[in-house]
């Protein structure tokens, strides 16, 4: 049983580590690559749609005027980390939040 568990865990860890390595290898250094991000129907949505979809997955969305532009910058980065947003999703959502504020 122990061997089975260790083997399963090792395979899962290796799979995730491998995926991580591939991602590191194929991503653009410096995090400026919104344009270099692979095209996707998901990320080709507008900022308003991405905002509604990504926020709505977990919670109600804040009122747009509840935070200043500077605060939205912080909140968007916080959610980028917490909700695994891509760079392009983050940029589009933030642009929408600032334009609507």
């Amino acid at each position: 049983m122990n061997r089975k568990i260790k083997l399963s865990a090792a395979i899962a860890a290796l799979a995730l580590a491998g995926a991580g390595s591939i991602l590191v290898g194929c991503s653009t250094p410096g995090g400026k690559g919104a344009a270099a991000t692979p095209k996707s129907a998901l990320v080709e949505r507008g900022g308003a749609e991405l905002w509604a979809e990504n926020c709505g997955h977990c919670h109600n969305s804040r009122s747009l005027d509840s935070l200043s532009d500077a605060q939205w910058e912080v909140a968007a980065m916080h959610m980028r980390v917490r909700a695994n947003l891509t760079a392009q999703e983050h940029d589009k959502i933030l642009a929408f939040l600032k334009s609507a504020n």
Partner: protein
Amino acid sequence: MKSRKSIVAVSLLAAATMGMAQEQADKEVVTIPKEQYQKLLDEHRMLVEEMKEMKAFKAKFEESRAKALTQQADTDQALDQLTKDTRDAKALAKEALPGTSKLLLTGYGTAGFNSQERGGDRKFYATFNPLLVWKLSDKLLFEGEFEAQLEGGGTSLALEMAQLSYVANDYVTIGAGKFLNPMNYFVERQHMAWVNKLPDKPLAVYDGLLPETQVGMQVRGGVPVGSTKFGYALYAANASALNVDTGTFAPEELGTTTFDNFDNVGRHIAVGGRIGFLPFPELEVGYGFQFSDVAPPQNGDTVNAFLQSVDLSYVRDSATLKGVVNFKAQWAWSHIGGFVYDPGAAIGGPFVFDNSRSGGYVQVAYRPSRVEGPVLKNFEPVFRYDMLNQAKTPTGVDETRYTLGLNYWLGPMSVVKAAYVFDQQNGPNADRRNTVELQFATGF
């Protein structure tokens, strides 16, 4: 034949005669009286003068029109500049407000009341979770959260989170510190009181089979793949400690682990992660795992601990249903390797077992947010089924609950919740405690 020649000759003669007559008419001179000629000449001169005046007027008109257009352009430019200046001034004013630099104070708080049957808890309570988020640069983010709650005769204060994150590139963020457990979907995305649809938290996935926080390092990010998206997290953290002491732990806790092992008793490192997949925006499915060796504080015996979790989230804003359907489900498995508990027979041992437990929840909520009217759209009925299965151990208890809840949203982040929990338990120390739960929760 002769008559044909005569016809052609006559036709030619007629044509020649007509051409000569036309030429005569073109060269004809018309004679008019001198007075009439003078009148026509005067009229011609007058027309020329009028034409000159009209040309002059037209030139002046064009000039003034051009001037007006230039002035309009200047006015438009000035208005644009004014608008821009106003916007800049507003932005400056916003920036000048306290807490609007790169620091965001957010979080949530609750106030509530629980009443359990059969001599259980009956009390009011309050909690406060301030979260400080500090954007140090475009790549660096710090998140710190405290959890303050009333406990016994005082207030307990716990460090819920203290993490520094570095955005390495578009797809990779590296974090270190104390962070919410990435392999546990409910903890990371749903446990906040204003997000959680019910006053209490589901069995097994919270305060049960899976850790709530980790102290260690993680790598995470999101990756679009075609029309879909993946989210991933991989971490290394302090391992849990095995609970074996019959003097400290209740019988049903033997063979479980203490997740808050900040001293890292046993010196083991846990490795875990989660991968989430979004085939379309409304749906996310995920798989999480954690593996480590664990040891009790008192000795160096080691067994392995393997935790797994699958989760599903579906949220759809439906015009047909006139509202938002929110479906969540998560199931967790915990396996702790075989160990000899209570070898001194303090509570009737020794017990030898490997601890395999499982549990999770299924929850559905519906909010008729598209219904007309100011009141009905704010209600949200909720149903949850959750269970914890640990009766396979000699001391464990199975628990199953059905919860009916009704929420009323006062705003996007403020909600009043009411729920009734139907509780069933099986096992050596089983009990049944239905509960009435009321809670006000707000995010800020």
